[in-house]
């Protein structure tokens, strides 16, 4: 493996698209059918990718409105906007919708579009199952949102679903359980698809260690999904039977233990956050080298670091449970294991910085978001390290410090990475350059809005403000008001992103070249923008 091809496959020029033997297939379609049924029946990875992304964008706003309601209530002390019970429904659904409806589907959308293009495959290994993976999601979302309108309202026990409180909840909870099952099935099928595609459908010559990092991170993430989602399914099924079928898994009176749920849930829950983070890392590993005009530093280390993070993610779950009363030995084990994850994560951060070092940097919108990610995700990582230390966590668990931590890694981390991916690849998908000025505005408004929203929350947590409360003592008033103002700015700025996306998808912008980015490398950039409906019908030659 020479340094020139390390991590990147180059197609032989002239071989792209479907300008090849038409003698062979006289009855195949040259383009997509038209109308609504195109989208319902499509098995094309590009169409399915687009649907995932649009679906995610819609849920981003639904979850976002819930966040605005939350921050409106928390704007001042006192109960002004909503009742406490409804407030709890908002916090619970905001979490579920953002995680399962927005951030996970958007990265699956990127996977669908990009993985076949990056490895030179004509489509995903199981194109029809791919369709079903997507179409399971809208009904699940209808269940989630619909649960707000049934008697008793929706889940109000937090997205973490702890019993015994969730056993007390009304029928909205059952709709949530059903939705979780459906989304889990979608993810598992999608993961089988991704693993099979990456392992078996790479173009000849594209060895695993020539694959782009985005494909590596998705390969590893797909294994995490298969290992974690069934556990969640088990946990919510046990909740269902405790609620309706007389079991007492989580009821002490029947011989069970509420803490058992926490173990099972977090055994899923911790790998889940890496399921969200790893594809985000993959995107950043594509964007930073492109805009540094320099190869990714330490490609193999990055692969091993990602794999280490994935494996370690299975032995740290009880750091979400330090205060349940587990023995010191348990607390210590999980503290050491959790701190250990900082090592491969740090390796990745250093490698990204080293990629930028002495590159030829330019700061178009994708790079702005990637750098924002680097800076803010790392900050979130540090607060995670603080939280991993048991005695400190005892003070901070269930406070706004935790809320700040996970929003830094999930929003300034995963979401910013998703924005970077969108700006980076939209010219390819749509054939239109997005408006760079507007993109920069979106970045800076998001950057400032996000930090004003969440940085003060660290202080709120340190000062003693718990999570999941609709009202608070006066000592917390100033930071809460600041946080809410930031949230309104941050939320509002996302409308700009919708406009930018709308412009691209309705062809209102400059035409994009096959490779609009000076330093981007990879098979996808050898294709026209937008690429033909079917690509790599002939396997590209990979050097």
């Amino acid at each position, binding site marked *: 493996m020479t340094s020139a091809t390390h991590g990147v496959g180059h197609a032989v020029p002239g071989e792209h698209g479907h300008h090849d033997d038409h003698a062979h297939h006289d009855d*195949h379609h040259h383009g997509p059918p038209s109308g609504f049924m195109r989208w319902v029946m499509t*098995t094309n990875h590009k169409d399915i990718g687009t649907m995932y992304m649009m679906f995610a964008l819609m849920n981003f706003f639904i979850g976002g409105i819930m966040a605005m309601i939350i921050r409106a209530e928390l704007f001042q002390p006192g109960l002004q906007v909503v009742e406490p019970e409804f407030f709890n429904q908002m916090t619970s659904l905001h979490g579920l919708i953002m995680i399962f409806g927005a951030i996970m589907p958007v990265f699956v959308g990127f996977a669908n579009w990009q993985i076949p293009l990056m490895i030179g*495959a004509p489509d995903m*290994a199981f194109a029809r199952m791919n369709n079903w993976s997507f179409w399971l999601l809208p009904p699940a979302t209808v269940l989630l949102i619909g649960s707000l309108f049934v008697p008793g309202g929706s889940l109000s026990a937090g997205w973490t679903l702890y019993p015994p409180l969730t056993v007390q909840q009304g029928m909205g909870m059952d709709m949530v359980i059903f939705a979780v099952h459906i989304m889990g099935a979608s993810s598992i099928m999608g993961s089988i698809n991704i693993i099979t595609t990456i392992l*078996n459908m790479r173009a*000849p010559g594209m060895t695993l260690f020539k694959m782009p990092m985005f494909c590596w991170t998705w390969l590893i993430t797909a294994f995490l999904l*298969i290992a974690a989602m069934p*556990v969640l399914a088990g946990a919510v099924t*046990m909740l269902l039977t405790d609620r309706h079928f007389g079991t007492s898994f989580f009821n002490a009176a029947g011989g069970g233990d509420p803490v058992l749920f926490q173990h099972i849930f977090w055994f899923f829950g911790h790998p889940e956050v890496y399921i969200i983070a790893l594809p985000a890392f993959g995107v950043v590993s594509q964007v930073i080298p492109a805009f540094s005009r320099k190869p990714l530093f330490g490609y193999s280390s990055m692969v091993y670091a990602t794999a280490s993070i994935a494996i370690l993610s299975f032995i740290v779950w009880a750091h979400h449970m330090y205060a349940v009363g587990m023995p010191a030995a348990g607390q210590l084990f999980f503290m050491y294991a959790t701190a250990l994850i900082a090592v491969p994560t740090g390796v990745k951060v250093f490698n990204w910085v080293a990629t930028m070092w002495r590159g030829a940097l330019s700061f178009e919108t994708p790079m702005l978001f990637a750098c924002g990610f680097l800076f803010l995700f790392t900050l979130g990582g540090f607060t995670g390290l603080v939280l991993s230390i048991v005695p400190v966590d005892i003070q901070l668990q269930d406070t706004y410090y935790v809320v700040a931590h996970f929003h830094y890694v999930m929003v300034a981390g995963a979401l910013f990475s998703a924005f970077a991916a969108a700006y980076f690849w939209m010219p390819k998908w749509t054939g239109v350059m997005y408006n760079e000025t507007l993109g920069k505005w979106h970045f800076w408004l998001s950057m400032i809005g996000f930090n004003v929203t969440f940085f003060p929350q660290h202080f709120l947590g340190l000062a003693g403000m718990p999570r999941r409360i609709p009202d608070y003592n006066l000592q917390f008033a100033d930071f809460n008001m600041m946080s809410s103002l930031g949230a309104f700015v941050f939320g509002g700025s996302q409308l700009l992103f919708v406009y930018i996306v709308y412009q691209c998808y309705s062809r209102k912008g400059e035409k994009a070249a096959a490779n609009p980015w000076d330093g981007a490398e990879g098979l996808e950039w050898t294709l026209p923008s937008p690429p033909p409906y079917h690509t790599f019908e002939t*396997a590209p030659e990979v050097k």
Partner: protein
Amino acid sequence: MSDMAKRDLPEWAQKRARGNRIIALVLLGLVVLYVVLFVTRYVIR
């Protein structure tokens, strides 16, 4: 009208179909194993 399914896959991809099936069955088997383990651990006492 199902797209990929009805079209002939490009030949080089067609050769991969058997490998795809094997990988998918192994992974599905893992998921099934999970369910079996769950049931034996928590349901059958």
